[in-house]
Structures are given as structure tokens and as C-alpha cells.
């Protein structure tokens, strides 16, 4: 049988989130984190380096200015009102320094010494390149903030020789600057004023912004490159082979046969994916082999089952099954039935006319069941019939059959046989029993009773055995019931045996009936007893009614 291929369109499942997207997302996040760290580090380094540079310059300027400044005249300057020639000379010299050093402001202040909240400007110069206005002499102003106050205090109290204030809060503010402060001391070493140099740091902001901009550009370019690279790489190394594997697995699950080209030939990879492809190849081979084996075994089973069915039919056809078998013989009536427990059983019955006046009856049970028992049964049946038709007596038939069967019985199988020959004109039944169940006899106006006949050993069990023979005189109306052990040993769910007592009761219940009715009565009695329990043994019965002339 060929299965229909590709009847249902194969669904192509798309992943919810592509593995490429996932891996790129990871890399992008990594890059962003990395560039932020680099930016912050670079930013800080730039700031530190530039600040150092700026403050160095500012302090150099401040120190130069202080050196050029006559500290001893500070009080004179303060008292000058900004008008004396000396003051103007000093201011001009300071202005030159301011311009040449590139400082924004150079100024000299005196804070009020009680709480440093106000400062008074003594000198104030402004770089000519800026558009600030300068504070006039004696201008008083609030101290900018606490930081300045603290630093003024330190310089005045002599705990510090120079102070630096950095005002670049926000880092990107428009006018960040630094102020370098040095004290102006009189001859006693006492601070009398503070000289401050202020420098703008426009350059710093510019450099830092450029730096961040560059990092941003580099990062974006890098990201694009990485994304493209990753897509290409993943596609080649990972996704393409995985897709091939997925397609192959999907194909295999629908078609269940081997592919034209092995997966490991399509996916040439020396990594785990290559190993996976190889594993799938091997798995497919094994599954296909397994399916083949299974198909063979199933076919074989079907064949055996068919043959068993045939065997059952052949076996059944071997037993006379047309009733009445001898429609023109009014001297007797006969009926028989066999119900095997398995498909083929080992029980059999037989009856045939040896000549016009002699009817041979056989009831037999082969040891075991199934095909071996059936084969043995066929052989036994033919052998018994052959010897009977040669005109031998029952005991002779059994002896000869035993000898024949023993000569070729490798499997120690045996068959129990009851065999009788009825002389139709006189009603004299001559019989012999080879290990079979006792026959049951009913004479006119009597009951069915077990006839304990003389027993010999089963046929096929041992060589050289002889069998005893006996006769029963049948009167018109006498009935003979023959059966196999399946009848008394029929078992119900409680493991009870049907037994000969129940069998006799059933027989006597319908003893007036025809052989066919009697068998039916026994059968229904057995069925009522066994109910749903499994039938262990074949159930075979035969009944003969002698009517006489």
C-alpha cells in the first residue's frame, strides 16, 4: 500500500521571534552598554586632563600676577580710590597679563572678614576679546556661593596657599569656567587680599561634545556592521543548515521514507549542527528500517492468521457436517458438533459406514491445541478411518493406529480415542477405549448413565499396547452420547468444573429429544454454567440414537 503523499499542504511554521533578531538584539544591547561605558570614561578623562591643563595655566598666570604685584602697597591701593598713578600702572600691567595669558578675568578682592558674604573689588581686568564689563574699583558684591566663602576663609586663615573653583555644572553649560585663587600676603605673611584668575572653558565643552559625537558615529557604524555581519554569519552558519534540518524533519514526518540526499551531505558543518544532521540521518534510517520490519511482521501475522483461518475451515470440512448424514437410513439418527477453543482445535469426531451393516463412530481428543494438535488430529483421523475400512475390529484398529502413530511421533503427542462399530441389524455395539472419556448410554425407559468401560492407554503414548474390546447391546430407542473432556471440564468464572453430574442432568432433562436436540440442551446448559468465562478447551459432542428396524 502506498500512502497518499502530500495530501495536506505542509504548514510552514514561522517562528514568533527570529533567532537572528534575538542574537542581534543581544549584540546591540552589548554595544550600547559598551559605548556608554567608553563615553563616560573618555568624557571623564578628557575633563580631568583639560581641567588639569586649564588650572595649571590659571595658577601660572595667578602666580605671575602676584609676583608683579607689590603686596606692600595693597593698603595704598585700597585707599587710592582707583585714581592714583601707581594704581593705574598696576591695573594696566595686570590688564596686559590678562590679555597675554588668555584669561577672562584677573581680579583682586577683599572679602569682609566677619562671614565672607561680601567681596570688595580692588582690581578688575577683562580680556579685551570678551564682551563682559569690568567691575569698577571698590565695587561690592555678594559672594557667589558657600564654596567661594569657604575658600576665601582658607586663604585668609593661611591653611591653604591656593584654591581652585570649577564651575562646569551640567558639563554642557554655555560658560563653564575655572577660577584659580592665590593669596596676596604682606611682609608678615598675612593675607591681605586674594588674586583670582578666571578662565572660560569653551574649548573643553567643544572637545567633549566632539568626542561624544565621534563615539556615537563610530558606535552606529559599528552596530550596522555588526548587524549585517551577524545576519550573514548566522544565516550561513546557523540558520540555513537549521532550516534544512527543519525541512527534512518535516518532510520525513510526512513521507516516512529516506531522502534522496542525506542530510549530512546537504549540511556540511563540523560543529554541533553537523552532528545533529548526522544524528537525524541515522535516526531516519533506523525508523525506516523499523517501519519495514514492522510491515513485514504485520504482513507475516496477517498471512499466518489467514492460514489459520483456512486451517480451521479445512479441519471443519474434514469432519462430517451434513445432517442427517444418511437420509435413507432409518435405523439410526446421529448428530455431532465441535466448537474449538482456539482457531484450530485437537478434538474430532467421525462416523462412517464401513459397509451396509456397520457404522463406525469415533470420538477423539489430541493432546494440546493449535496447529500442531490440528495436524496430529488430521493424521489420526485418517489412520483410524483407514484401519476401520479395512474391516478390523475396534481393538485391532486402535492397536494398529497406535503402532503407526508411535513409529513417527517425535513430539510425544497423543490422542485419546473412543471407537465403536455398530452392527446396524442387531444393534450390537463393539467398542474400545484408548484413554478417552467414558461413554454415556441410555436404554429405553431409562436414564443416561456413565458406562465405565475398560480403558486402555492413549494412542501415540507408548509402543506395543493392546486394547480391550467390549460390546453393548443397543435396543431400539437406545441412545449413546460421546464427548471430549471439554464438556465436563468446562469452567466458570469461579473456577468450578461443569462436571459429569451436571452433564448427566442436562442429558436427562431432554432425553426424549432427537440427538440434535440433546446436543443443544447440553450446550445451552454448559453455556449457562460457564457464562462469560473464557472457553479453555474444545467442546465436542456426538449423539447416536438407535431406532432398529
Amino acid at each position, binding site marked *: 500500500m502506498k500512502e497518499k503523499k502530500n495530501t495536506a499542504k505542509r504548514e510552514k511554521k514561522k517562528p514568533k521571534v527570529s533567532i537572528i533578531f534575538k542574537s542581534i538584539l543581544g549584540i546591540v544591547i552589548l554595544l550600547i552598554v559598551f559605548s556608554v561605558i567608553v563615553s563616560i570614561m573618555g568624557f571623564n578623562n578628557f575633563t580631568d586632563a583639560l581641567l588639569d591643563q586649564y588650572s595649571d595655566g590659571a595658577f601660572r598666570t595667578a602666580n605671575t600676577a602676584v609676583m608683579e604685584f607689590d603686596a606692600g602697597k595693597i593698603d595704598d591701593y585700597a585707599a587710592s580710590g582707583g585714581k592714583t598713578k601707581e594704581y593705574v600702572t598696576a591695573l594696566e600691567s595686570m590688564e596686559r597679563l590678562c590679555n597675554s595669558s588668555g584669561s577672562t578675568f584677573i581680579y583682586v578682592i577683599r572679602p569682609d572678614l566677619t562671614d565672607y558674604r561680601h567681596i570688595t573689588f580692588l582690581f578688575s581686568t577683562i580680556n579685551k576679546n570678551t564682551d563682559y564689563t569690568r567691575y569698577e574699583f571698590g565695587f561690592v558684591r555678594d559672594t557667589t556661593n558657600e564654596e567661594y566663602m569657604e575658600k576665601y576663609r582658607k586663604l585668609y586663615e593661611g591653611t591653604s596657599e591656593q584654591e581652585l573653583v570649577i564651575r562646569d555644572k551640567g558639563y554642557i553649560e554655555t560658560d563653564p569656567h575655572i577660577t584659580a585663587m592665590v593669596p596676596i600676603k604682606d611682609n608678615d605673611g598675612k593675607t591681605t587680599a586674594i588674586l583670582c584668575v578666571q578662565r572660560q572653558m569653551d574649548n573643553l565643552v567643544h572637545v567633549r561634545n566632539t568626542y561624544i559625537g565621534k563615539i556615537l558615529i563610530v558606535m552606529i557604524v559599528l552596530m550596522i556592521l555588526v548587524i549585517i555581519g551577524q545576519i550573514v554569519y548566522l544565516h550561513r552558519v546557523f540558520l540555513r543548515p537549521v532550516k534544512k534540518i527543519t525541512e527534512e524533519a518535516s518532510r520525513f514526518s510526512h513521507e516516512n521514507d529516506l531522502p534522496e540526499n542525506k542530510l549530512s551531505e546537504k549540511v556540511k558543518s563540523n560543529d554541533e549542527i553537523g552532528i545533529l544532521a548526522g544524528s537525524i540521518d541515522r535516526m531516519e534510517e533506523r525508523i525506516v528500517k523499523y517501519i519495514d520490519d514492522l510491515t513485514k511482521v504485520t504482513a507475516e501475522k496477517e498471512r499466518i492468521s489467514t492460514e489459520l483461518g483456512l486451517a480451521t475451515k479445512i479441519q471443519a470440512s474434514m469432519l462430517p457436517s451434513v445432517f442427517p448424514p444418511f437420509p435413507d437410513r432409518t435405523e439410526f439418527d446421529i448428530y455431532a458438533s465441535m466448537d474449538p477453543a482456539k482457531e484450530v482445535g*485437537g478434538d474430532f469426531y467421525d462416523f462412517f459406514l464401513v459397509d451396509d451393516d456397520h457404522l463406525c463412530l469415533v470420538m477423539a*481428543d*489430541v*493432546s*494440546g*491445541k*493449535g496447529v500442531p494438535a490440528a495436524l496430529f488430529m488430521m493424521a489420526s483421523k485418517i489412520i483410524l478411518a483407514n484401519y476401520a475400512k479395512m474391516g478390523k475390529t475396534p481393538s485391532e484398529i486402535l492397536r494398529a493406529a497406535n503402532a503407526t502413530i508411535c513409529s513417527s511421533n517425535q513430539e*510425544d*503427542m*497423543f490422542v*485419546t480415542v473412543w471407537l465403536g462399530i455398530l452392527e446396524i441389524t442387531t444393534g450390537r455395539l463393539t467398542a474400545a477405549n*484408548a*484413554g*478417552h*472419556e*467414558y461413554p454415556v448410554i441410555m436404554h429405553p425407559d431409562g436414564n443416561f448413565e456413565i458406562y465405565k468401560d475398560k*480403558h*486402555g*492407554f*492413549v494412542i501415540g*503414548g*507408548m509402543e506395543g499396547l493392546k486394547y480391550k474390546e467390549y460390546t453393548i447391546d443397543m435396543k431400539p430407542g437406545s441412545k449413546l452420547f460421546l464427548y471430549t*473432556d471439554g464438556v465436563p*471440564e468446562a*469452567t466458570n468464572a469461579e*473456577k468450578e*468444573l461443569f462436571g459429569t453430574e451436571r452433564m448427566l442432568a442436562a442429558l436427562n432433562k431432554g432425553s426424549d429429544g432427537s440427538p440434535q436436540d440433546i446436543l443443544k440442551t447440553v450446550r445451552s446448559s454448559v453455556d449457562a454454567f460457564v457464562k462469560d468465562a473464557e472457553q*479453555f*478447551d474444545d467442546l465436542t459432542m456426538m449423539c447416536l440414537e438407535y431406532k432398529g428396524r
Partner: protein
Amino acid sequence: MTIESKNESGKLTLTITGRLDTSTSPKLEEELKASYEGVTELVFDLQKLEYISSAGLRVLLSAQKTMNKQGIMKLINAREEIMEIFEITGFTDILTIE
């Protein structure tokens, strides 16, 4: 069906419990085939045997034939129902039943 097996220097005693029929007989046959060697006395204790079918009888017959060549075989403690089967089938003439 269960088989209890006891071997005392060449005397093998098998105690069979349950039913000895078509489905269980092969088990007894295998057990016997595996243990014949060196056995000079084979004893079947049938006290707990509930039922024996023709398939079971066949195994006993086989055992008897084997033991005829290498020693003796006995059946002991058979119940009445089992004895009846032995009698009907003529096995009482062939087997040693005590």
C-alpha cells in the same frame, strides 16, 4: 501455575500449583528440559495441582519417557479429580502413582 523445584543429589522434586493446561504446560516442559541432567529420581508433588489437561498429560508422558532412560519417576499426592483423569486416560498403567 507455579512450579517449585527442589534438587537433592539427583532427586528432583517438582511441586506444581494451579492448572496444568495448554497455556501453562510449555513452562513445565522447559523447566524439565533444563533440569533433567543428572536426575535419577524425578518426583511430581501434585497436592496443589487443580487441573490437568491433555497438554499437561503429554508433558508427564514425555518426562516418563526421558526418565525411563536415566532413572525413575513418581507422582505423589494427586487429588481425586486428577487421579480420575489419570484413570480415564490410562495413565495409571504407565506412570508410577503413589
